[in-house]
Structure formats: C-alpha cells, structure tokens
C-alpha cells in the first residue's frame, strides 16, 4: 500500500468521525436552540410555528418582561449561583486533598477506602432521599441553602476523588521527592506544586460537578422549596400550571438560566479541553 492511500484512508475516516460527532452535536443542541428562539416569540407564534425564527410580526419580549417583573427571578438566580459556586469550591478542595492522600500516602485501608468512595459513583444519591430529608429536618436545616450545599457536596465528591486520584498518579514521583529535598512541607507541596499541575483535571471535575447541580430540580424541591430559597429550576416551575402553562415565561427563564452556567463553563473550558486530551495521550 502506498503512502498516498494511507493518507486518503485517514482522511475518509476523519470525515466519518466528524460527521457522526457533528450530527450528535446538532441533535443535542436543537432543543436548546428551540427554547431560545421561541423565548423571543409571541404566545400565538410559539404554537402556530414552533420551528420558525421570530420575525417582525412574531417578535416579542413578553416572556422576559413577565419573568423579570412578576417573579423573584434575581433571587432564584442568586440561590442557584451561590449553591453551585460554594459546592464546587468545597468539592474541589476536599476531593483534591482526599485524592492526594489516596494516591501519595500508603496507609492501612488505603485501597478499601478508595473502593468505598468509588461505590459512591455507582449508587445514585436520590435513593437516600427519604433519609436525607429526615436528616436535614432533624438538623433544622430545612429550607436553607446549606442543606443543598451539603447534599451536593456528598453527591459530587466520589467522582471528583476518583478522577483526581487518577491524575495525581500521573505526576512524576521525582517531582514530589525533589520538593521534599527542597525543604518544602507536605501542605505546601500539595498547594504550590501538585494543585497547579492538575489544574486541567480540576477544571474537568468542576464542570462535571457544576452541571448536575445547576440543573437539579429534585433536592431543591424536597429540601428548600420555601419562598426566597428556591433555585432557578424550581422557580421556573411556578409558570407551569396543571391546566395552563405560561410558555413565554418558561422559555424566557430557561434561556436566562443558560447564561451563568455558560459563563462558568467558558471559564473552565480552556482548561477542560487540555485536561481531557492530556489524560488521553499519556
């Protein structure tokens, strides 16, 4: 087989792979696209021509005005944002430290502990909803954002620890030993040498942690449904009635809800892409 043929085969394979990925991207993005274009249309136009773009006749900001004027949208926003950011911060710190301990220090029960944490990935936290609700009630934390943060930290930790442990294993042993010979203490090695090196992995974990939290409806519904404590996904529900759904408002608030998470994603994404490839190539 000549050199040319190999290249042609590679090219056709790339076309196929990219075709599949592109199709998947379109399928995944289409609903979001529909939400966004319909958010800018009149109620009638949404039902008459759901696929159509807003035009001069059908364009309307009715949904947005309703959402911003008639509901505590900024409160929902604030709640969601607070819960997500605080959770990410706690998960990243605790998971990185746990991963460092599991990968670097040999102590009795090391493997058992790692396995125990890995089981957390496989068991959905929602199975424990009833006990979690009881616990939160007993702690007097019902209708607080603290309750949500605690539950989300528990939910996010296992996967975060698992991913970070793998990354920490890849850091050359010499580097840690050089730091020890350099007179650097263990905490300082962790914060000044290890953490900067696994930044891509930390970004990956941040994205994996933040998206399910931002989108979650279940725990806000059972743990913090009270006024002033609702998150954005729960807040949107007030426009969805048993008989009538205010689609303008629902679509407008969903469109708005995309923005903060998109910003967070953009912050992490440059690191994330490096993280995914560096994990794959090595």
């Amino acid at each position, binding site marked *: 087989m000549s050199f040319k043929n190999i290249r042609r085969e590679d090219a056709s394979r790339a076309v196929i792979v990219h075709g599949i990925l592109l199709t998947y991207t379109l399928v995944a993005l289409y609903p979001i696209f529909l939400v966004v274009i319909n958010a800018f249309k009149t109620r009638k136009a949404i039902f008459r021509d759901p696929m159509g773009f807003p035009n001069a006749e059908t364009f309307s900001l009715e949904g947005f005005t309703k959402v911003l004027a008639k509901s505590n949208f900024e409160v929902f926003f604030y709640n969601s944002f607070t819960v997500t950011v605080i959770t990410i911060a706690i998960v990243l710190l605790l998971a990185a430290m746990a991963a460092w301990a599991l990968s670097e220090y040999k102590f009795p029960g090391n493997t058992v502990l790692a396995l125990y944490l890995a089981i957390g990935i496989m068991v959905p936290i929602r199975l424990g909803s009833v006990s979690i609700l009881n616990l939160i009630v007993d702690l007097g934390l019902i209708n607080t954002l603290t309750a949500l943060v605690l539950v989300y930290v528990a939910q996010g930790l296992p996967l975060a620890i698992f991913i970070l442990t793998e990354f920490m294993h890849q850091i*050359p042993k*010499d*580097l840690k*030993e*050089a*730091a*020890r*010979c*350099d*007179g*650097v*203490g263990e905490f*300082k090695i962790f914060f*000044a*040498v290890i953490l*900067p*090196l696994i930044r891509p992995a930390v970004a990956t974990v941040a994205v994996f942690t933040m998206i399910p939290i931002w989108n979650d409806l279940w725990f806000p519904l059972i743990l913090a449904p009270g006024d002033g404590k609702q998150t954005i996904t729960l807040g949107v529900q007030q426009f969805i009635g048993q008989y009538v759904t205010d689609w303008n408002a629902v679509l407008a608030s969903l469109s708005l809800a995309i923005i903060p998470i998109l910003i967070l994603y953009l912050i992490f994404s440059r690191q994330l892409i490096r993280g995914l490839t560096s994990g794959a190539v090595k």
Partner: protein
Amino acid sequence: MADLKLDQIHKSYGAVDVLHGIDLDVKDGEFVVFVGPSGCGKSTLLRIIAGLEDITSGDLMIDGDLVNTKSPRDRGIAMVFQSYALYPHMTVYKNMAFGLKLDKQDKAAIDARVREAARILQLDQLLDRRPSELSGGQRQRVAIGRAIVRQPKVFLFDEPLSNLDAALRVQTRLEIAKLHQELKSTIVYVTHDQVEAMTLADKIVVMNGGNVEQVGSPMQLYHHPQTRFVAGFIGSPAMNFTKVSIDKVEPGKVTVSIPGGTPSVLPFDVDQNELGNQVELGIRPEHLSLGDGGELTVHGEVDVVEKLGDSTYLYLKLANGDRVTVRAPGHSRVKIGETVTASVSAGAAHLFSGGGKAFAKVDCPAEYSADE
C-alpha cells in the same frame, strides 16, 4: 559542608534484602561516586542518604548528627534527579528560589543566592524561562542550580547525565567537575557509567548485589581491583579473563599455564593449597601488545576487528574458546581470520581465585601501580 558516615546500613523491602550492611566514610569536601550495574542498590543507598527511603537498620550520620529519622528537609542535603524534576509551572528563577522562599529567608538574600548560582551555571539569560522552553542540558543546570542555592551540607546526584546526549554528557561532566572545585562541597554521585565514575570521583564505591565490592580512588580500582567483579567493571573495554591452572607455587611467584600459550611465571603471593586449582587470569586490553615481547603470551584467531582511528580493537578467540580483546595501534593491518600472538608483561597481569578474590601482587611495577 560536612562529612558523611554510614554504619551497617541495611535495607529490605518486605522479605527482600537490597542492601546488606553498607559501611562508608565520606570526608568533608570529597567527591564520592557510587557505581555498579542496575539493581545493585546504589540508587537506593542514595535515596536513603537523602531521607526518601527508610533505613531498615544501621546508622546514618551527616556532619556528626544521627539523621536516621529526620525528614529530607532537616538533613541539609540537596538532590539532583535524573529526570531533572523541575517544577513545570515555575520560571527558572522561581524554581531555584522556591525552597528558600518557604524558609522565610530575606528576599534580597534569596535574590543574591539565585543570581550567584545562575552566574556559576551560566543561566543568567534564562531566568525568566519555563522549564519547557529549555534544552535538556539547560534543565539539568537549573536542577543543579536549585541544589546550589540551598547551600547544603551534602550534594546528592542521581544519574544526572543519563538523559543527555553523548556530547552534552561530556560537557556537563566537565561542568560538574569544575563546580566541585569551585564549591569544595561534599558530593555523592550515583551512576552506572564507569567513565563518569573514573573522571569525576575522588573516591569510587563499586557496588554489586547490595554489597560494597571495593572503595578506592579511581587509579586504585583500575590497578588493584580486589575482586574479579571490580576488575571487569572498571576499564573500557572490559578486562579479559581466562581460566588458567596453577602448576607451581613458590614464595612470591606462581607458574600458570595459559591455554594456547606457554607456561608463565607471575609475581603473585599464592597459598600452597591452590596448587593445581583453576584460577582466573585477568589482562587489560590496553596492556596487551602484538608480538611476543612480554613474559605472558596468548595466541588466537582474530574474529572481529574494530577500527577506532587512534587504536584498533582485535577480538581473539583462544584455543579454549575464551575471548581476548587486544588494543592494537590504529595503524594495525591485522585482518579477520589471522592468527596472532599478543603478550603482556607479567607485572600487568591480575590473578583471581575461584571465589573471585584477587591474589596479592608482589613488587608491582610503577606503571601498573596507583602509588604516586
């Protein structure tokens, strides 16, 4: 700067013993090289000195202090790794200053020390670069610089040249030698390359299978190896060995017969009990010369010829199947298939017992002696 003392250092991983009681004294300012084949325990011993491995039993003293249980940072050592182990996210300057900064030292003092180290190692122009923007040799210099700024009692080098290409290795080797002259510091250096060991060391420690085979100056090891292992390890190309039997033992003299050669009288002190035993004769390729001018001759068929320009290596096959390498002059015209005679003066020969111990040589000629 300080001296270093190892007393009966043992190391085992579970049931596997890797170091069997190492005793060693390193004097202040001495350049000591641990050399040996891979798996001989030389790196483990260095890591024990650094404090990166625990001691199973035995005592380790640095500057008179027992440091067995001290962490690396409290031992006053600095280590240079084979893989450089630079912090990839820091500039050259920060790499060197990092340890000092954590020590809460005065900023101006840190700066002065880093710049001084950079000057010694010619890194002045590179202080703002990241390790990824440096060549291998430059990275290794930064790693050395990071060790220098700590002003340690003992420098530890773990195969620092192994990742460099041949030309750079020679150049960096010279720089390390110069550095030692300039700093007059105690250095422990691990390598598997006997050329590095010979060129750098004040004192070489040859290790094999977790034991110290011999400690001595490069010339002592070259001229007076105490075991067959040391004789074979030091010197390039390696010493030739061939089995001989002892025919006659007299005080200070022993007669051996070489296969394919004539019986020869060699100046060794050998016990009467060895009479008739098989022992090993060792001759360095560079001591052999073509023709029968010496007291000890071998005949063999040349089966490989390597021309290096300044010299030519002839690989002879003896009658008993043993191989002998001869270093002939570069202008030698010997061809493959020829049968040649090579000889050596009796004073250049080495004789090893069946157990691999060297027999004592009597009246060693000056040209084959380490005495100055």
